[in-house]
C-alpha cells in the first residue's frame, strides 16, 4: 500500500523496481493513484520513464497516465529539494498572517536546499498558522521555527 509521507530520502531511479511496484498494485480496483503514489514516494517524482512503465503495466496510453500525473498537485515531475516546506495559505491561516509567513519563509530559505510551496488546508485551523515541514505538522508557527528545522 502507499504511504502518506515519504519518510526516507528518495531512492535513485530504478526501472525494474518501478515496474515491480506497478505490477504489485495492479490488482487493486482502480490501481492508478496507488501506483503513482508509491512511485512518487519511492523516487521522489513520477518522471517520463515511470509514466511509460505504468502505462505499459496497466495497458493505458501514456497520454492517459500523463493526464492523471499532471492533474494532481502531489505528483512531481522532478524531485523536490532535500527539504519540503508546505505552508497553508487557506483562509483560516490567512486570518493569522499566512501570506506574510509565506514570504518570510521563502526569504529565509532562499539559496538553501528547500522547496517552499503553498498548501490549502492542513486541518490544523484552530492552531493557525500551520505548516508541514518534511511531513511534520506544525501549529502556531512562525518563520524562525520553520527555518530552524531546515537549516543544516
Amino acid at each position, binding site marked *: 500500500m502507499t504511504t502518506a509521507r515519504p519518510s526516507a530520502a528518495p531512492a535513485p531511479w530504478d526501472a525494474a523496481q518501478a515496474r515491480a511496484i506497478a505490477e504489485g498494485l495492479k490488482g487493486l480496483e482502480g490501481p492508478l493513484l496507488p501506483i503513482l503514489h508509491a512511485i512518487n514516494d519511492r523516487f521522489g517524482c513520477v518522471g517520463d520513464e515511470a509514466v511509460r512503465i505504468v502505462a505499459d503495466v496497466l495497458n493505458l496510453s501514456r497520454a492517459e497516465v500523463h493526464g492523471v500525473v499532471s492533474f494532481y498537485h502531489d505528483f512531481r515531475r522532478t524531485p523536490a529539494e532535500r527539504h519540503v516546506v508546505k505552508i497553508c495559505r487557506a483562509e483560516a491561516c490567512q486570518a493569522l498572517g499566512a501570506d506574510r509567513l509565506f514570504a518570510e519563509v521563502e526569504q529565509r530559505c532562499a539559496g538553501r536546499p528547500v522547496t517552499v510551496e503553498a498548501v490549502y488546508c492542513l486541518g490544523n*485551523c484552530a492552531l493557525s498558522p500551520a505548516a508541514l515541514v518534511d511531513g511534520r505538522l506544525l501549529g502556531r508557527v512562525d518563520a524562525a521555527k520553520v527555518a530552524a528545522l531546515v537549516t543544516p
Partner: protein
Amino acid sequence: MSLRLFVPADAAARSVGADAVAAALAAEIAARGVDAEIVRTGSRGLFWLDPLVEVETAGGRIGYGPLAPETAAVVLDGNRAHPLCLGPVEEIGWLKSQQRLTFARCGVVDPLSLADYERHGGLKGLRRALELAPAAVIGEVVESGLRGRGGAGFPTGIKWRTVAAAEAPRRFIVCNADEGDSGTFADRMLMEGDPFLLIEGMTIAGIAVGADKGFVYLRSEYPDAFRTFGQALAAARAGGLLGPDVLGSGRAFDIELRLGAGAYVCGEETSLLESLEGRRGQVRAKPPLPAVKGLFGLPTVINNVLSFAAVPTILAEGAAFYRDFGTGRSRGTMPVQLAGNVRRGGLIERAFGLTLREIVEEYGGGTLTGRPVRAVQVGGPLGAYWPVGLFDTPFEYEAFAARGGMIGHGGVVVFDDTVDLARQARFAFEFCALESCGKCTPCRLGSTRGVETMERIIRGERLAANLELVRDLCEVMRDGSLCALGGLTHMPVLSALEHFPEDFARDTAAAA
C-alpha cells in the same frame, strides 16, 4: 492500580508539542519510579489548551494544559492549585455545554483499542442493525432526519434507499474524507480519535444497502489520519468487525483506505469517484446520480465522514433520540469547527440552532489578536462572509440559506478588523482558478476572469463597471457550472460585496 495518563496523539496536539510532552512525562515517570501508564488518545478538540494531558482519578479525569516538556511533571504532582491545572475536564464549561454524540469518545478512548471502543458504547448500533431487516435500518436513518454533513445537506436515508432499490450486480459504500475546506478538521479528528465509529457507520450502510465493499477516500494532507485509520482497519479485521463474517453475522463487509493526491475538487462526489477509478478528478454531469450509477458505474452510497459517524448512534439509541436534537429541518447535532483568528478554537458539537454570536463570542472568546471581530466565513472557501450584524443567525441549514450562506461542513473562520474583504473576494476566485478541474467553461475561465476583475477593483479602476462585471460573472458561474466549486464561488464574493461594500471602494478616492 497504576496511574493512567492520557496524552493526545492527534495531529493538532502533536503540532504544538504533544509528543515532546509525552516523552518528558515518560522520563519523569521512570525517574520517580511511579507506577503509571501513558495512553495516547485522540483530541477533545479544546485546541487552545493543547498539549492537554489528563489524569484518571476517582473523581473523573483531571486536566492540565497547555503543557510544555518543562512543565509536564506537574501532572504527576497531583497539585490541583497549580495554574496549569484545569480541574475535571468534563466540567470545563466549553466542553460541558456541548452535546457530544458523534464525538463522545474522541479524546477519551485509545483510538486503536476495539475493547475500549466497545466499553464506551461502541458496536451497539451495528449489532442492532444486524438484527433488523435492511429496509428497517434505512427506515431508522430516514426517520432520524440525518442530512449529509459534507455540505450539501441531502437526506442520508433517502440516498441509501435509492442505492438499495437500484438493480445491480454489486453496490459500493464510499466515504468522502477529502476534507478540504479551510476551517474544518472534524473528519481528521474523528479518524484519528475514534476511527472505529466511522468503520461501524460504513458497515451499517453496507449491511443496509447490500454492499460488501467500502472505500475511504482520504486527503493526502492528513498523514496522521492515514496512519491511524489504516491501523484501525487492521484491528477491525483482526477483531471480526470487518471481513467475511461481520461480528459472526455471516455478512461480509470490508473497507479499503485510499489516498487523494492534493486536489480540492476531489471533495466533490463525482470527481472523487473518478479519482478512485484512477482518472483525473474531473466532475461528471448529473444525472445519473452516484446512487444510481456511481463507482465503476454501479450504485454507490457516498457520504461524508460525519454522516457515516452519526449512524451508529441513530441505530443504537433509535431515530427519535437523534431527531429530538436540533430544530426545524436540521435534526441532530452538528460538529462546528471554530478556527482562524480566535482565542478558543476547536470542536463544538451541539444540536443545530446555536447562533453565530454564541459560537464566536461565547465559545471563541473573540480574536486571538485581541482586535475586534469583523467577519466570519462559514462553510469553507465557498461559504459566505458574515458581518457581526448578522451574528444572531442560528446555525442550521435553512436559516443560513435564507441569508445567502450555507453551513457547509461546519467550519467557522474568524477574522479581525484588519481583514480586507475585497482581497478575500479575489482569493475566492484565485482558489477556484487553482483548483478548477477544467471540465466546464464557467468555472475554468470565469475564475481567472474573476481574479483579473477583482484586481482592477482593488486598484480602483472603473469601479462601477467592474463591480457590475463581477456580479454578472458570479451569476454565470452559479448557473452554468457543473459542480459546487464554480457554482458556489459567488457566495464568498457576493457576500463580501454585500456586507462590506466599503472594502470594494477603498481605493477609488485615491484614484480619483
